[in-house]
């Protein structure tokens, strides 16, 4: 069912009586308590989609991001963030900045170079340009991700779908990231290359980008925030998605209090480069505490 960006349709079904302030207030308040396919769940414990094994009271963020929608959030170090792709058509474009010091942010080149691995998967550290781990991929049941192609630009979506504006029927990831960043007091200068989850890309021997698409409905990725983060997510089609229509499914986001990676965790000791990245992260965090 989810195919195109969420559109706000006129409400022709409901009779509105709004000729006085009192009537308008009554009309507005009568709308409370309704639900939508895509919405934040406040409090987070009221989410109808709480991940198995997670106590409702531990949740700090729960939301369904619309197809063609975006979200932004500040999370504490140690927060575990779960992204669910219930239909197999979500594409979670992610950009991370350090909360309070956003000039430290996701560095995709270091994220693939330092672990000597281009393809994201469980255990992969998402590195900043300052030699620290912003987040760790703690769980991955999809295996179809991309650190090469970034997200779509307005020019790209205009060429592909005829429109890439954030308010249009086929918003680009770049335009949504720009708005999401602005909500956090950030501008285009604060946005660098992003990564995406749930739609895969592989690189051929000649360098060609090969879109491998989705692993199917019902996969999930979990991230651990290793520092306080500004999380920006745009849920838009992967730029190399070969389908002519703007196809993207809803994205579920749940986050809860957990523990950051430390000595004794497998990710911490996975390689000498990663061990030093976590040591740098902890060293910097503790000096500010």
């Amino acid at each position, binding site marked *: 069912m989810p195919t195109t960006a969420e559109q706000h349709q006129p409400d022709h079904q409901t009779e509105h009586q709004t000729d006085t302030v009192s009537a308008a207030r009554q009309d507005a308040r009568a709308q409370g308590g309704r639900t939508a396919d895509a919405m934040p769940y406040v409090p987070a414990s009221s989410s109808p989609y709480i991940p198995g094994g997670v106590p409702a009271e531990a949740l700090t963020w729960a939301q369904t991001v619309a197809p063609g929608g975006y979200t932004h959030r500040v999370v504490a170090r140690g927060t575990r963030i779960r992204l669910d792709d219930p239909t197999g058509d979500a594409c979670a474009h992610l950009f991370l900045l350090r909360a309070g010091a956003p000039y430290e942010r996701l560095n995709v*080149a270091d994220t693939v170079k*330092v672990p000597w*691995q281009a393809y994201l998967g469980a255990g992969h550290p998402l*590195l900043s340009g300052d030699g620290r781990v912003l987040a760790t991929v703690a769980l991955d049941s999809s295996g179809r991700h991309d650190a090469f*192609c970034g997200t779509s630009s307005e020019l790209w979506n205009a060429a*592909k779908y005829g429109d890439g504006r954030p308010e249009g029927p086929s918003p680009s990831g770049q335009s949504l990231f720009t708005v999401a960043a602005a909500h956090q007091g950030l501008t285009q200068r604060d946005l660098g290359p992003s990564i995406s989850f749930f739609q895969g890309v592989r690189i051929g021997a*000649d360098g060609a*980008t090969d879109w491998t698409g989705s692993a199917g409905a019902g996969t999930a990725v979990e991230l651990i925030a290793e520092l306080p983060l500004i999380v920006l997510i745009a849920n838009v089609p992967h730029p190399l998605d070969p389908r002519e229509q703007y196809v993207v499914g809803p994205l579920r986001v749940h986050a809860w209090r957990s523990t950051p990676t430390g000595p004794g965790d497998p990710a911490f000791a996975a390689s000498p480069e990663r061990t030093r990245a976590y040591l740098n992260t902890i060293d910097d965090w503790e000096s500010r505490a």
Partner: protein
Amino acid sequence: MTVLDWSHPLVPGAVTRDDRVAPRASWSAVVPAGQVLTIVDVGGNQSADCLIFDAADPAERYSVPDTITWQGNAYVRTGTVLRSNLGAPLMTVVGNELDRQDTIGGACSKASNTLRYGHHTAFHHACRENFLSEGAKHGLGARDLVSNLNWFMNVPVEADGSLGIVDGMSAPGKRVALRAERDVLVVVSNCPQMNNPCNAFDCTPLRMIVTVPAGPADDTVGTVGDPVGDTAGTDATTEYPTA
């Protein structure tokens, strides 16, 4: 003893700028629209880390993923359009004497050196230092540093996703030529890295030559690979029009 070949412009024409960049140093210049920047790998296998900004609005700047997506290929070759974070052309590779050039390996930094080689390398000079000091001359700072190009550096991606900097494919006097599609600010770090083969463990000079091309604007010269346009890649699944 290191062989140096200072070479000459890859695209002939009136020379408007001709600079020699010392080993480990930084360089920047505005290249006006239509003019061509030739970068010479004077000593061979010397990585020239490169960022490109719109000269009038540096918030629009080189973007690795946009460049890769539009051409459907992770490697930079003759014909590659170097695109901005808005997807628009900044420069075009009109000449190139290597099989492929890198744009996925990023720049070295003191911080990443501590991850890659150990904390004893934290005080080695690095490209991020060069980008910060050269960028400061133009009012640019850490917010303006993004993933970059690495001329003359070799970063293969293997079938299982293994990726890394390996021995280079360049040689003294090898060149790449970039035509400015608008007025652009080009910032280069002559990479000081001595812990991996990106500079063949021997930092050497670069030569930067800007010419006003004598021939038609769409001519290509000294090419290895495919013709000009977003056709440097060969991905048949990417069939969108170029902008």
